[in-house]
């Protein structure tokens, strides 16, 4: 078990560190008892790292994912994202961070079923306040970059699972986020399609994208360059893999 670098509260992290957590903890009040989902997780992710977060169910990896994705706020500890302390921001400020800094890819794709692929990809740009013209251009560009330039007007139910996940990836990337955050991105896909998606991730990583992926499948985690394993709300292992 490697020790995280020493970090004092109040420090500003180095510029090439995208994610820095310090004794991050999250408790859930379940009424009769308090569940300690995370018990103080400290780790850093540098720019252009490709990290897989693994662990059995109940290990706290979903909680960590929600915290990293700014969908939730920690009960204790600090979280710095791209040089900004985000652990104590308000709801609306978190929404802004999610919009600018984070691109989500979900297991269930989470596309709007009635909207076209293009409109789905435009969504983050709408909330970023981009003009209709800019939105269209950038959404089309993002879709083309994942090989769906000819499927822009299709609705999600007219696309295959792999294509839907590509739409989701295009949507995640359209605002050029600091991190691509994937939660079981291949959980709903067959193995051939899974490896397709892993190829997309590999390409993005090669182009300089920071990728954080939560998974419980070892062969999927094997695509990452570094694997962090959680157990009972704490980091169990943190290993770099040979390239």
């Amino acid at each position, binding site marked *: 078990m490697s020790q995280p670098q020493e970090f004092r509260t109040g420090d500003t992290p180095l510029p090439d560190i995208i994610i820095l957590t310090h004794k991050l903890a999250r408790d859930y009040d379940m009424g009769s008892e308090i569940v300690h989902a995370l018990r103080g997780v400290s780790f850093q992710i540098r720019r252009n790292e490709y990290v897989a977060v693994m662990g059995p169910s109940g290990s706290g990896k979903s909680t960590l994912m*929600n915290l990293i*994705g700014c*969908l*939730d706020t920690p009960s204790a500890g600090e979280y710095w994202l791209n040089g900004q302390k985000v652990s104590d921001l308000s*709801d*609306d400020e978190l*929404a*802004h961070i*999610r*919009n*600018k800094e984070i691109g*989500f890819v*979900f297991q269930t794709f*989470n*596309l*709007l079923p*009635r909207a076209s692929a293009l409109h789905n990809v435009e*969504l*983050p740009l*709408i*909330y*970023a*306040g981009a003009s209709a013209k800019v939105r269209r251009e950038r959404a089309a560009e993002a879709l083309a970059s994942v090989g769906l330039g000819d499927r822009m007007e299709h609705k999600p139910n007219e696309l295959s699972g792999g294509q839907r996940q590509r739409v989701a990836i295009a*949507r995640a990337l359209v*605002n050029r986020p600091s991190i691509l955050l994937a939660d079981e991105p291949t959980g709903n896909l067959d193995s051939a399609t899974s490896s397709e998606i892993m190829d997309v991730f590999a390409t993005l990583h090669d182009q300089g994208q920071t990728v954080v992926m939560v998974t419980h499948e070892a062969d999927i985690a094997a695509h990452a360059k570094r694997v962090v394993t959680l157990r009972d709300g704490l980091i169990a292992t943190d290993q770099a893999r040979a390239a």
Partner: protein
Amino acid sequence: MRIFEAIRLALQQIRAQKLKSGFSLIGVFIGVTFLIGAWSIVNGMNVYMTDKFAGTLVGVNTFHLRRAPNVNFNVDDSVWRSWRRRPRIKFADANAVTEKLTVPVLTAWYSEDRGPVEFNGKVAKDITLEGATERYFDIMNLTIAIGRPFTAEESKAGVTVVVLGWDLAQKLFQDLNPIGRKVRIHGIPYRVIGVVERQGNLFGISLDKFVVAPALSPIQREVNPPGVVDALIIKANSEPEMREAMDQTEAVMRSRRHLRPRQDDNFAMMTSEGVLDFWKKLSRILYVVGPGLVGVALVVGGIVIMNIMLMAVAERTREIGIRKSLGARRRDIMRQFLAEATALATVGASLGIVTGVGLSLLLKVATPLPAAVSPFSIVLGVIVGGGVGIVAGVYPASRASRLDPITALRQE
């Protein structure tokens, strides 16, 4: 997210869910239709009453000296009986008032009854038989279409000549020229000397079924006891002059009737305003009842919209989660759902306005009810409709905006 974006999204949503949207529109639609429809009828009546009804019955800057008001509303029996006990207006009263008025006025005697008019075996029943003096035509703005009115000499002498209303002339004579022919009223022949231009109708009742004969002609025996007139009609040039004439008339009449200062007038002076009082009382009720009913419809419409929006929020929890994960702030979600509710209500209101205006025009064409669409009611319809949408949308929208993104995303 910009407001325009929210509206576009809302319209998309309405288009995508036509049936559900349709139901939620109905409440506001009915409310606004009713608002416009009811409003335009009351408004139309109002215009009608002020412009036509009162003018027809009394005339502008004109008042009638009568025993008692002839147009009234909700009068007690006891009051009615006391009116019946009052002395009638006599020829002598009419003459005295006419002589003593110092304000320039036109005056005419006027008496009426209903009865049949006969020509060549043909009988027109239920005709207004009017006995009047020569100024009557000027005062009431009755234009003679064919022939001439009777003269002051004919009036004074009580010559048996008669002027017909248009519909009556049509009925009795059809293609014949009525001028110079004789009609019989209660057996007495009168020579037709003129026909009055068509007046149209009032609440579907023809205003052209009348005869006017000189007040002193034998018709006086049919319409009133000897020496009595229903009314002395007095027309002044302006409102202040009319008021002055009324004061003078009151003074003359009180002195002729030997009324002590403490006693009330035992005669009435009817102005068009007096006639309108009757209408004002009625319309006040309509203006209260109408909006009340509209209000109920709109509240129901608002509740339906609120329900639909709450359903939409529940159904689209996951969508809200997705939007939040992509950076939608509370106010973006709030705006989206508010815009949707408002758009629903506004579409409903617009349809309501179109239908309401259509209905009013239909009423105007198909029934004797006067209907006039007032622009104010259209503006009100839009504001009220949109307002209902906003009010009904606030609660569902704020619930949607407060959803926790993690919980919302987990929703199936």
